[in-house]
């Protein structure tokens, strides 16, 4: 069997004159959890639905497990999907919900129910099979939805914003459950979210999307540390975007000069600096001024006015506190910045 679970080749999806997905290509390896991340309307949900077969591409090819499924309906693919609203059938019991897939595909009813019971037990839902979905808590409902989606050992498990209906407090636990489950069953999973923190926490790789196109694909660390574009830098975490000029092998902006590892360039350029890659040192003759100091419990956040514009700086809680109006020296760590594509 091939190592590539899902492959998109130049996939386009149009609705009338609106292009929801604009010629995207990527591939997902088996056993990987990949997140589609982006603002609303970026095409991430449409991409997920294209994998599920709930939408068919206007152009291009979708392959699942090496097979071209571009014109196959959802029912003719082997995918599992966990919906935002869970979409449990309210008129069926939990076990009927979980055994629905195997039964409707023509399998033996008893075998399907037994397999469903097993899965329910694995997810800590034993004894709830006879209940109706409306009699379960939100967290249990979601686990039933997951059980229902994996009972047929799908080629890929799809999650459409699974945490949006979960209490803020519970989210961390539920997303860890999902990650744990995906590893335990060695599932290929695709996860859609607009929450960058969630994406960083659960993913092997992230596909950042914007306006129907892929902005960048990479591991959470790659995306955070070396965003390739202004959009990605801005969308994932906080970023200071500093505009300046190439001068030989240096990037210069105001009184800032940084040596670029990549060699010389020409003309205007933009770099992205994460707030925690900047160190501040109190200095009466410093070139920058703290304009706002915020205490966040786990860290300090400062707004600093510099010769090359305002900077957002994050400082550990163990550092000496600064106050608004303090003059400071600013130091950007040598490998703490990224040159953005212009």
């Amino acid at each position, binding site marked *: 069997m091939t190592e590539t679970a899902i492959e998109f080749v130049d996939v386009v999806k149009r609705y009338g004159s609106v292009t929801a997905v604009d010629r995207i290509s990527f591939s997902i390896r088996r056993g990987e959890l990949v997140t589609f991340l982006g603002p609303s309307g970026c095409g991430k949900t449409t991409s997920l639905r294209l994998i599920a*077969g709930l*939408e068919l591409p206007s152009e291009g090819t979708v392959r699942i497990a090496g097979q071209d499924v571009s014109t196959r309906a959802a029912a003719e693919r082997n995918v599992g999907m966990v919906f935002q609203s869970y979409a449990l*059938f309210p*008129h069926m019991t939990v076990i009927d919900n979980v055994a*629905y897939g195997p039964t*409707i595909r023509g399998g033996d009813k008893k075998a399907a129910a037994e397999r469903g019971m097993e899965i329910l037990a694995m997810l800590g839902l034993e004894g709830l099979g006879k209940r109706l979905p409306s009699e379960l808590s939100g967290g249990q409902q979601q686990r039933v939805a997951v059980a229902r989606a994996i009972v*047929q050992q799908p080629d890929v498990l799809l999650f459409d914003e699974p945490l949006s209906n979960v209490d803020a407090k519970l989210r961390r636990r539920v997303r860890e459950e999902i990650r744990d489950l995906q590893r335990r069953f060695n599932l290929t999973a695709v996860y859609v979210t607009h929450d960058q923190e969630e994406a960083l926490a659960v993913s092997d790789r992230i596909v950042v999307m914007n306006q129907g196109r892929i902005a960048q694909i990479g591991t959470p660390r790659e995306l955070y540390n070396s965003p390739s574009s202004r959009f990605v830098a801005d969308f994932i975490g906080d970023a200071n975007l500093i505009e300046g000029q190439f001068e030989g092998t240096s990037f210069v902006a105001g009184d800032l000069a940084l040596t670029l590892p990549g060699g010389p360039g020409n003309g205007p350029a933009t770099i992205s600096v994460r707030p925690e890659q900047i160190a501040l040192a109190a200095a009466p003759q410093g070139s920058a001024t703290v304009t706002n100091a915020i205490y966040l419990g786990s860290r300090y956040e400062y707004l600093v006015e510099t010769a090359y514009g305002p900077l957002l700086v994050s400082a550990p809680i163990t550092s000496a506190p600064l106050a608004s109006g303090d003059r400071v020296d600013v130091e950007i760590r040598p490998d703490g910045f990224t040159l953005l594509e212009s």
Partner: protein
Amino acid sequence: MRQALTLVNRLGGLWLLVGLAAVLVLPWYKLPPPDTGGGASLLGSALTEALAGRWWLLPPVLAMLAFAGLRLGRGERWPAHAAVPWLAGAAAILYLGQAFGIGLRGPAIDGIAQAMPAAALGQPGLGVGGFALGIALTGIIADSLAMRGFCRGERFAANAVIFVITLLTLFVFFPILRLGSAALFTPDGVFQPGLFVTRFTAPDLWGLDCLVGDRKCGVVINTLILGILSGLCSTALGLALALIVARTGFRFKGALRAISILPIITPPFVVGVAIIVLFGRTGVVTGWLDLLFDIPRTRWVYGLPGILLAQVLAFAPITFLVLLGTVEAINPTLEEASKTLGAKPFATFRTVTWPLLRPGLAAAFLLAFIESLADFGNPIVLGGGYDVLSIRIFFAVVGARYDLGNAAVLAIILLTLTLSAFWLQTRWLGKKSYVTVTGKSDAGLSAPLPDPLKAAVYLAVIPWILFTLGVYAIVVIGGFVTDVARFDLAPTLRHLSTAFAFEFGQFGLQLYGSAWDSLQTTVLVSAIAAPLTTAIGILTAYLIARQNFAGKGAFEFGTMLSFAIPGTVVGVSYVAAFNVPPVDITGTMAILVICFMFRNMPVGMRAGIAALSQIDRSMEEASQTMGANGFATLRTVVLPLIRPAIFTSMVYAFVTAMTAVSAVIFLVSARHNMATAYIMGRVENGEYPLAIAYSAVLMIIMIVCIAIIQLLVGRRQLGRRSEMHKPPAALPAE
């Protein structure tokens, strides 16, 4: 059953098998074949008929053989082959071309007969094989489109869309087109386009003489006058009823709502008959008035006043329901705001309540207007000399002067009037509704009615209640007394036994009564039509609410349009379209069922759309990702969740089929007579007690059947419900 389905799929799908059977095995032509002048025997399949000289039947045969070949070469997904849609499309065009090109008496164009001499003999209507091929080709086209991504690749949805479109085209639009072309022919079948103008401008259509002199107006003007008056009166009465229920402390609100349901299950004619019995020249009330007040007996009830009375009685409940919705939707805080600003009760009503009611009033008026135009039962009983379009159409087709062309022109005029009103109605409802539904609970109490208005409202409603009670008293007792019309109230079962006598003899149960045939047909046709009507209505609702496909806008418009066609027009158009090959089905029970299906599907459709809008779409998507195809999803997920809509549609379809008259009256035959047609015959003969007795029996049957359907469709839902501690949010509100 699942194994059988899988096997069918293995063999290349249902449509390929049906298609092959259609061309190779099944008799192509309608049986028994009418004598078309010797030549080949017409009992053969398309293949044998083609080999016997009817070469025009060869393309479908070749197409199906080609598809079978593709199946052998290409495997189960053979419709995905690029040639399939073209081949199927070409076969469909040639199939339709031969069906319409070569009629009973030979080809439409002489050239065809030279190329294929057998064509000169003509051909009868399509039979089992012919229809099966049409079904197979439609299905193959749908499959091949689905495999190209139509309806997201969902084969069931693609098939449903294509089939519903095909059926609507065949049974709604094609008859109307045939009707339009019939307007251009003389009664002898000679093409003469100028005739349309002659017929259209006939003086007895548009004359305005009744406005100035005392002569009669044209039939179109009559129809319009009746429609406008009926619309105005029904709306006024409906508003009065709505205001009483929503805005007064009237004690018998429940009874009022119950009474308002009655006209829906009342067979046609019976209200007209009851009115005659009450107010006719020898009527009960007329007699008393003569006796007590010396008011002379007249025939005033025949004509406009009588029809108007009967129509207002029938339509006020409809306008009542529309207006009750409007009145209840008015946010009381608006009226309270007006009062805190210093407006007196009447000023508040005039400046706030009334303007908010206006869109609802317009909608109610147009609804009653459309109903009045389409009404057939009341004018034919009470019309006297007052001619309206629906009656004139009927007599142009059924009467001694059979003139389909003239009927067609009248039908086109009626259709145009109705569609215009329908168009206005959708525009009004679409744009001018200020209904203040916010989802918030409305604080505050509705303003009670100002006193003079309250008096006026009671003044309108109380006579209506008395009148309704009077009419239904006649219906209840009229069939079981000697002669209600002459106030001879001696109880008797004579009328009932004339209609429904039976006996357990040596040959078992024997039915002697004269009405048994029509009753059996009516119940049978209604029982067949109700589930089919519901099926196509709910299916169409599912397509409109859930599927996205190219041309959906036009599809919606088409289904909307089919609502608006008056029954009389449908009847005439079916006569025009289905009396001749290729679709020669008049005189069969099928045409009755089909007629009901397409006339009554809108209610199922609307109920279905409303119910579906309450259900989270992702449940269906979940079902699909788990491997259920569109049909399985519909069956296991959608239908159980919209059961109340199915119930509504079933009941409505059944009841309407039992009481329908306007379209059916054209389609009944000696073999398949319907209850309403039978009753009409009795009314025309003046056998009122018999007509009333039969109507009462029909009403009892309807009530019993509604109860049974409720038990069958509703029970499981109720059972499930009682198990739940709290109903899930996704279930539709009942």
